[in-house]
């Protein structure tokens, strides 16, 4: 029963995600210029039903992750710029492949940071909250790629 409920939840989330940016906004009569999208901390808090302390913990973990990710983020931007330049300049495939490998290494470090933050948060959840962590797992995807994880 629990598993079925979870599947239904995931399906609903996937449909919303597939609509890309719908988020209910296009389907309501609310003024179009009004932004109704909650911040990520709000989304996480609602989805996991975090208490005050847990919310603080999540914010601290993600703030720390963001700080740690900052240099990687810059590296990733430069790396992708280099790949773009190599392609547009018609460089050899071997050269491009080398740049791609470097990019993948940076990406894996970023993935490591994301997952470390995820694990920290997961471990701070109560047993009844942990089954809902799949939403958090999805949200961690690229969370430190923006200047602020909470935007």
């Amino acid at each position, binding site marked *: 029963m629990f598993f079925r409920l979870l599947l239904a939840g995931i399906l609903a989330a996937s449909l919303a995600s597939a609509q*890309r940016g719908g988020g209910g906004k296009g389907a309501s009569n609310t003024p179009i210029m009004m932004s109704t999208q909650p911040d990520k901390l709000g989304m996480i808090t609602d989805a996991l039903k975090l208490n005050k302390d847990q919310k603080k913990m999540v914010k601290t973990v993600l703030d720390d992750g963001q700080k740690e990710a900052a240099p990687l983020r810059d590296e990733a931007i430069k790396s*992708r710029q280099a790949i773009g330049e190599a392609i547009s300049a018609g460089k050899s495939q071997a050269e491009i492949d080398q740049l791609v490998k470097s*990019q*993948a290494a940076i*990406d894996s470090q970023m993935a490591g940071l994301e997952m470390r933050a995820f694990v920290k948060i997961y471990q701070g959840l109560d047993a009844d909250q942990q089954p809902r962590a799949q939403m958090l797992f999805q949200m961690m995807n690229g969370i430190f*790629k923006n200047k602020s994880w909470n935007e």
Partner: protein
Amino acid sequence: MFIRLLLTAMMATALAFAQGGGAGGGMGDDMGGTGGRGSGMGDDTGGMPRMQRQSPFDIFADRLKLNKDQKTEALTVVGDALKESAPLRQQLMQAKLDIAKAMLGGASTDDLKKTMDAYISVDAQVTGLETKAFAKVCATLKPNQQGKAASAFELMAGLFIAPAGGAGGRSGGRRGRN
């Protein structure tokens, strides 16, 4: 239990991605990509200004200053690359899950490194597909469009994966995967 939950979530995400990438859907604003256009629920708002969030593909096309024909061609190229990369992106999520599992299980440094290496391997394949798609798009550019082409590669990542939080890729260059 944890693993089963996350695997299910990943499958659902992959399905959502596949829907977005199938035929370029989710990328162009006439393809249901932004704000539910065509749904009959927002087109007759009595002249109220409608703030459309630009799709990642539109941002990409704007950066390259693509004309209509180039845009159509680029959409096809990116759509094909999306289809081709779908299983790899699913593997990427699995690789990320393996990293989390290793961390949760207190894996040794060596074991953790193995999971990271696996991630690198798949990520390089996905980026490789992005580079090929980008090269195809670049090949359609006229000389006066080539100046800023390199900077548009950053935006390719935004075309390949939904961003964190399902926000619709507002910044274009934010890739969901790493």
